[in-house]
C-alpha cells in the first residue's frame, strides 16, 4: 500500500481515466469526498422528510398525511382523499430512522467523509490520502451500509422502531417491538457503517501524521485539519465499542444469547453503558469538525488571525479526552448507582469549559476584524449561535436533580437539535465555502442569503419552543401528545413548531436549487475566491489528481490575515516572502 501512496505526484499526466474509475471506483480523495457529499445530501432529504412526517403527526395527531395513502395497511392506515394516517408503530419507526439516518448517514458522511476526504490532503499539502484504495473501500462500504439501512423500510414488520439508542430489552427481542428483520438490518447497517468510518479514520490519521508538506508542523495545521484529526482518533477508539455492543445485541436477537435479557441472566443497563460509552464521544465526533470549519471561516471572513490558536487546538483535545468519561449523564435516571450519577455530573460540567473557550475565542476573533458577511460566514455565525443555545441547555441536564425532571422530555430534544442539527449550519457553511474548489464554480450568493435567513429563522422557530414544551413536561417519543391532559394546553406550540419545521424543510429547496444550478451553470470560480491562506487555495482549480503542481513549502500558520508584512490582507501559507517570516512561530 505504501507505494501507491507515494506514486501520486506522477498521476497528474495519466491518460484520461474511464468513467468508472473516475466517478465510481475513484481513488482520488477529492472525488471520494464528492461522492460522500452527494450520498449525504440525498440522505439529508430522506431524513428530513421523515422528520416532517414526525412533525405532522405531533401537530395534527392521527389526521391523514396528504399523499401518504399509497402505503399498505399495517404501516399506514388509509385516510380520505388518498391521504394516510400514521399508526403508533410507524411513528416510532419514523423517528428512529430519522435520527439514525441524520447522524450516521448525513452528518458523519458529510462532515467527516466529505470534508475529511476533500480537505485533509489539500490543506496539509499532500497529493492524496495515505491509502487511496482503503479510502475508496470506505466509501463503498458506507454506501452499502446505507442501502442496507434503507432496505429495512421494505421488510415485513418495517424498520427498527426502538429509538436511535436502541435500548435493550426493547431492541433485544423481536416480540417487544414486533420488528424482526428491520432491527437486524439496523444492527448490520450500523456495523458496516462503523467499518467504513474506521477505514476513513485510519486513513486520516496516517495522512495527517505522515504526509504533511515540508514546514507544515502540527501547530501550523488549520483548525479544520486539527478537528478532523481529533475526530478520526475518537472514531477509531469509539466505534469498535459500538460494534462490540451491536454484535452482542445481534446475538441476543439471533443466536439465543441473553447478554441484555434479564430472564437469561443478562443486564439491560450494560447496553446503555456500552452504547453511551460510544455515544458521547460520537456527539463530539459530530460537532468537532463543525467547530474546526467554523474557526477557519470566522478567521478568514474577519480577515484576522484566529484568536488563541493554541487554546483552540488544545480545547478540542480536551473535549476529546473528557468525552470518554461523561457517558453516564445519559443514564442519570436509568437506575444506575446514583453515586455514579454524581461523578458523571462533575465530569459533564467540566467538559463545558473547553466549549466555553471555543465560544469566547470565536468572539475574540470577530473583535477588531474586518468582517465580510458572505454566505459561508453567515452560516458559520449561525452555527456559533446554535451551539451556544444548545450548549447552554446542556448545562440544565448536566445538573442531576434538574435532569430528573427534564430527562426524556422535549427539553432534551431541543438541546440536541440545537447542537446536532445546528451542525447542519456548519455543513452548509462548508459547502458554500468550498464549492468553488470542489466544483470549480461559484454558488449564487443572493440565493444563499435567502437560504440562510429562512433557515435561521425557522430553525429557531422549530426548535426553540421545544424548550417550553420540555419545561412543561412534554415527553419525547410520544405518538400523540393529546392523550395527556397536562400536555394538551400546550398544544398550540406543537402546531407552531410543525409549521416552522415545514417551512424550514421547504427553505432547503433554495439550497438544492442553488446547488444543482451552480453545479452546471454557476459562474466559473477563481483559484482563491475568498482570498484565504490555507493550502487548498494554492492548488489549481480544478486540482489535478495529485493536487499540487509542486509540493508546497509551508512558511507560516494558516491565519496570517492582515499581517503587516504584506500590503494585502491575506498571506498564504506557502508564500515565501523572505527569511524573516520563515522563522515565525505557528
Amino acid at each position, binding site marked *: 500500500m505504501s507505494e501507491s501512496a507515494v506514486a501520486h505526484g506522477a498521476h497528474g499526466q495519466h491518460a484520461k481515466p474511464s468513467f468508472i474509475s473516475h466517478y465510481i471506483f475513484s481513488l482520488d480523495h477529492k472525488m471520494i469526498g464528492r461522492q460522500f457529499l452527494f450520498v449525504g445530501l440525498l440522505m439529508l432529504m430522506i431524513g428530513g422528510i421523515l422528520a416532517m412526517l414526525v412533525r405532522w403527526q405531533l401537530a395534527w395527531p392521527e389526521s391523514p398525511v396528504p399523499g401518504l395513502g399509497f402505503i399498505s395497511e399495517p404501516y399506514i392506515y388509509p385516510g380520505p382523499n388518498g391521504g394516510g394516517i400514521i399508526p403508533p408503530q410507524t411513528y416510532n419507526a419514523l423517528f428512529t430512522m430519522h435520527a439514525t439516518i441524520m447522524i450516521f448517514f448525513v452528518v458523519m458522511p458529510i462532515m467527516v467523509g466529505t470534508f475529511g476526504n476533500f480537505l485533509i490532503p489539500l490543506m496539509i499539502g499532500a497529493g492524496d490520502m495515505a491509502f487511496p484504495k482503503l479510502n475508496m473501500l470506505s466509501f463503498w462500504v458506507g454506501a452499502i451500509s446505507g442501502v442496507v439501512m434503507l432496505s429495512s423500510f421494505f421488510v415485513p414488520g418495517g424498520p427498527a422502531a426502538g429509538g436511535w439508542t436502541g435500548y435493550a430489552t426493547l431492541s433485544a427481542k423481536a416480540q417487544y417491538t414486533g420488528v424482526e428483520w428491520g432491527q437486524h438490518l439496523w444492527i448490520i447497517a450500523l456495523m458496516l457503517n462503523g467499518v467504513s468510518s474506521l477505514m476513513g479514520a485510519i486513513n486520516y490519521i496516517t495522512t495527517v501524521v505522515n504526509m504533511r508538506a515540508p514546514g507544515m508542523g502540527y501547530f501550523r495545521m488549520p483548525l479544520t485539519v486539527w478537528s478532523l484529526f481529533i475526530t478520526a482518533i475518537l472514531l477509531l477508539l469509539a466505534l*469498535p465499542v459500538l460494534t462490540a455492543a451491536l454484535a452482542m445485541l445481534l446475538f441476543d436477537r439471533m443466536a439465543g444469547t441473553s447478554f441484555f435479557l434479564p430472564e437469561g441472566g443478562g443486564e439491560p443497563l450494560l447496553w446503555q453503558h456500552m452504547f453511551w460509552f460510544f455515544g458521547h464521544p460520537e456527539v463530539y465526533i459530530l460537532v468537532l469538525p463543525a467547530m474546526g470549519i467554523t474557526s477557519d471561516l470566522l478567521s478568514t471572513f474577519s480577515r484576522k488571525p484566529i484568536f488563541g490558536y493554541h487554546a483552540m487546538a488544545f480545547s478540542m483535545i480536551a473535549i476529546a479526552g473528557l468525552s470518554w468519561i461523561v457517558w453516564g449523564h445519559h443514564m442519570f435516571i436509568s437506575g444506575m448507582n446514583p453515586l455514579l450519577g454524581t461523578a458523571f455530573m462533575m465530569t459533564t460540567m467540566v467538559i463545558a469549559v473547553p466549549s466555553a473557550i471555543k465560544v469566547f475565542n470565536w468572539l475574540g476573533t470577530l473583535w477588531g476584524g474586518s468582517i465580510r458577511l458572505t454566505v459561508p460566514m453567515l452560516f458559520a455565525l449561525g452555527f456559533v449561535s446554535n451551539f451556544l443555545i444548545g450548549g447552554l441547555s446542556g448545562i440544565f441536564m448536566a445538573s442531576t436533580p434538574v435532569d430528573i425532571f427534564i430527562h426524556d422530555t422535549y427539553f432534551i430534544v431541543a438541546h440536541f437539535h440545537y447542537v446536532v442539527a445546528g451542525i447542519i449550519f456548519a455543513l452548509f457553511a462548508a459547502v458554500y465555502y468550498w464549492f468553488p474548489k470542489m466544483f470549480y464554480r461559484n454558488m449564487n450568493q443572493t440565493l444563499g442569503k435567502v437560504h440562510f435567513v429562512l433557515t435561521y429563522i425557522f430553525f429557531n422557530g422549530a426548535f426553540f419552543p421545544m424548550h417550553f414544551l420540555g419545561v412543561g413536561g412534554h415527553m419525547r417519543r410520544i405518538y400523540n401528545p393529546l392523550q395527556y391532559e397536562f400536555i394538551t394546553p400546550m398544544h398550540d406550540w406543537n402546531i407552531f413548531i410543525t409549521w416552522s419545521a415545514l417551512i424550514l424543510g421547504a427553505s432547503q429547496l433554495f439550497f438544492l436549487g442553488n446547488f444543482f444550478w451552480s453545479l452546471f451553470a454557476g459562474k466559473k470560480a477563481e483559484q482563491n475566491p475568498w482570498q484565504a491562506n490555507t493550502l487548498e487555495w494554492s492548488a489549481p482549480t480544478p486540482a489535478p489528481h495529485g493536487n499540487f503542481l509542486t509540493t508546497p513549502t509551508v512558511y507560516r500558520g494558516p491565519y496570517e490575515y492582515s499581517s503587516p508584512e504584506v500590503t494585502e490582507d491575506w498571506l498564504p501559507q506557502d508564500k515565501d516572502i523572505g527569511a524573516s517570516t520563515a522563522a515565525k512561530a505557528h
Partner: protein
Amino acid sequence: MATSSVAHKLDDVPPPAPRPELVGGGPPVRPNMPLLNNARLGVIMMLGAELMFFAGLIGAFLVFRLSAQVWPPPFQPRLPLGVTGVNTVILLFSALTVHWAVGAARVGQTAVLVRQLGFTAALGALFLAIQGYEWARMIHFGLTTSSSVYGGLFYTLIGAHGVHVIGGLIWLAVVYWQARRGRFSKKDFVGVQTTRMYWTFVVALWPVLYGLVYLY
C-alpha cells in the same frame, strides 16, 4: 517581526520553481521522512481499534464475572483447561516463528522467510483445529450460546478471537504466496512487518482471554 519596515506585495513574490521530479514524473517525493511508514502506522491504528473492540467485549465479560457469586454458574460444564493450555503454548510459539520470518526478510533469506511464514500459518491452523474440536465437545456437553450468559460470553469472546485467527491465516497465506514469488527484498519487506504486527496482536490477545475466560 514588526521590524520589517517594507510590506511586501503578494504578486511581487515570485512563484516557486516547478520541481522537475513532480512535473515530469521521476522518483516520488517524500516531504518528511516519517518515523513509521504509512503501512505500519495504518496497522497500528487498526490494532488500536481492535483493542477497543475487545476491550468492549472484555468489559462486558467483567460486568458479569464480577457480579456473579459462583463462576462458572452451576450446572454448566467446565472449560478444558489443560488442552487449551497446550494450545496456548502452540499459539505463543507462532509469535516466535513470525518474528523469525521478519528476521529472515531483513537479511534477504527468502527461503527461510517462506519456511517461517509457513510454520506460523501451520501453528495457527493447528490452534484453530484444536479449538474447533474443543468447541464441538463443549457443545456436546451442553454449553451453548443460549444455555447461559456464561456460554454466550464464552462463544462470543473466544469466537471473536477465532475469527481474528482466521483473518490472520488468510493474511499469512497471502504474504506466504507473495514471499514465494519473491515479492520481498532486504529493502522492502513492509508486508512481512505488518503481518508480524497483526499476528503478534492476535497471539498476545490470547493469553489475556485464556486467563479471563478459562482461568478467572
